[in-house]
């Protein structure tokens, strides 16, 4: 029973990891919490749905699923580029105070969520079931196929991201710009391009996460509010740390699955909130232990 829950938790946690890492990427480079990420996930969930309905006539099952994911990921990446251009480019160029970034991201998030409400809220949509709901047995353990695929695809997206971050030139540029923007600029990196690339990567992760959220729940405009899971994971893992976000998200997924068994789905947000508060009191730096200082 318990290892079974552990596996379900890790699968859920991998979706949370997509959210938390997408959030941490932007936090790293611009040093603010990007609240528009939730709205972006709502929109990409619908983009994925549209792609899935249109292409559903030609392909089925696994290929359809992959195409849906790719469509949502690309849509998310492009949308994030638009968000960066509309909401943050001018703020960055005029060196605005961080509170303007906050308000801009909040506004952008609400705008995206609200556009969905205006254009799509009158009907309920839900993704078709891509795979038969059967299980694979590993000895005594049985893993549901949707859970397994969720885990595999999330993990693949994260691994690709890590490879890009740590093995490519643009990844190096992103990492050095998050470390120190002005020095990176002096070294000849174009901050606009680097920031745009970061937003694209974050949007791709948000897009994949949006599809999984849409599959797990139904499609509704406020779907993106599940970004709160990403926040909790980031707080537990340590704000702005990619590895911390990964660990925090998987932990959160496991804890949540156990809590649902223990106290029910209704009370689990309350318990998770309390855990987060206790964590902040005891170890405010998060698991990773890096603390992002305000710039002097």
């Amino acid at each position, binding site marked *: 029973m318990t290892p079974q829950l552990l596996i379900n938790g890790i699968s859920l946690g991998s979706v949370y990891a997509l959210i938390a890492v997408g959030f941490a990427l932007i936090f790293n480079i611009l040093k603010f919490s990007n609240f528009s990420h939730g709205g972006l996930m709502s929109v990409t969930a619908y983009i994925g749905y549209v792609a899935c309905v249109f292409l559903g006539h030609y392909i089925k099952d696994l290929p359809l699923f992959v195409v849906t994911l790719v469509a949502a990921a690309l849509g998310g990446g492009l949308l994030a580029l638009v968000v960066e251009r509309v909401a943050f480019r*001018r703020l960055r160029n005029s060196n605005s105070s961080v509170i303007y970034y906050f*308000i801009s991201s909040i506004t952008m998030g609400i*705008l995206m969520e609200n*556009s969905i409400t205006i254009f799509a809220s009158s009907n309920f949509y839900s993704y078709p079931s891509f795979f038969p709901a059967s299980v694979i047995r590993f000895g005594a353990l049985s893993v549901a196929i949707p859970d397994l695929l969720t885990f595999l695809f999330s993990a693949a997206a994260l691994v690709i991201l890590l490879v890009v971050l740590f093995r490519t030139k643009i990844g190096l540029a992103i990492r050095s710009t998050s470390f120190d923007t002005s020095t990176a600029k002096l070294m000849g990196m174009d901050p606009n391009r680097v920031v745009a690339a970061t937003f694209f990567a974050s949007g791709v992760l948000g897009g994949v996460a949006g599809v999984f959220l849409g599959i797990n729940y139904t499609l509704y405009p406020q779907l993106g509010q599940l970004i709160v899971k990403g926040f909790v994971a980031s707080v537990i893992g340590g704000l702005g740390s990619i590895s911390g976000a990964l660990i925090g998200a998987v932990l959160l997924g496991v804890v949540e699955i156990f809590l649902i068994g223990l106290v029910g789905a209704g009370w689990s947000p*309350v318990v998770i909130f309390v855990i987060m508060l206790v964590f902040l009191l005891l170890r405010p730096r998060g698991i990773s232990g890096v603390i992002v200082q305000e710039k002097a």
Partner: protein
Amino acid sequence: MEYIASTLTFTGIALIGVLGVYMVTGLTGLFSFGQAAFLAIGAYVSAVLFKNLGFPLPLAALVAMLVGLAAGLLVGLPTVRLRRDYISLVTFGFGEAIIAVLNNTANITGGAMGLSGVPQRTSFLLVLASVIVCVAIVVSYKNSKYGRQCLALRNDELAAKSMGINVERLKLVTFLIASVMTSFAGVLYVFYTTYVEPGAFGWVISAEWMIIVFVGGVNSLTGAVVATVLLTGLPEFLRFASEWRIAIYCIIVLLILNFRPSGIFGEHEISLRFLRRLFRKGDSAE
């Protein structure tokens, strides 16, 4: 007439919430997504005490505000020591947790069905008086030593700290005043609508209040008041496509942020001195 009075009453209640956000966001530069949750606390605690336990209304209101204060402490204490991002993230979780509590205590709060049958006790005059008192509190806070410290903290926390300002205490006190004020708005709200449901207290409400503060101007109380009246009062009267309302606000805010980042009123206040200076300028120009 009745309709105008009810619109004005709702505008007044929203204004009290916006004043709380103004203190936290406009003055201090913290972003709280939990203000609507404090509204919920005020509404539910007072309504349940009054309806189920037979508390007299003033006592119920007082207890509701105290519960709001305690909740503010719970959220504020761990977060004020940290970067300001934490208060946004934690209040977001707080809002979600409060809604979950309301949904899961159906035998007391009515759960998702909502709490109905609360008698109507709030009148327009009561709301007007409350608004005046709250504006007076915020004005005197802004003009006091603490208000100026808040501004310093908002612009540069490190510099404020090195000038000897106790930033942690300052953040906590401002956050608590706003929490209590918003809980009070919740009391007024429930005893006016006579019905509340958890769905009405999502983070979008909190975010909408922040947007209102920013449309008015980052640090202008006058701006916040004018923006509240314009953005919550006018649409009720005009009744123009209500679902587009929020989208239009967002576009306005994005335009303002891109082209006039200090908001409509910027840092200006309408006061006697300001008016006098305006006239004097006219004189010298002649």
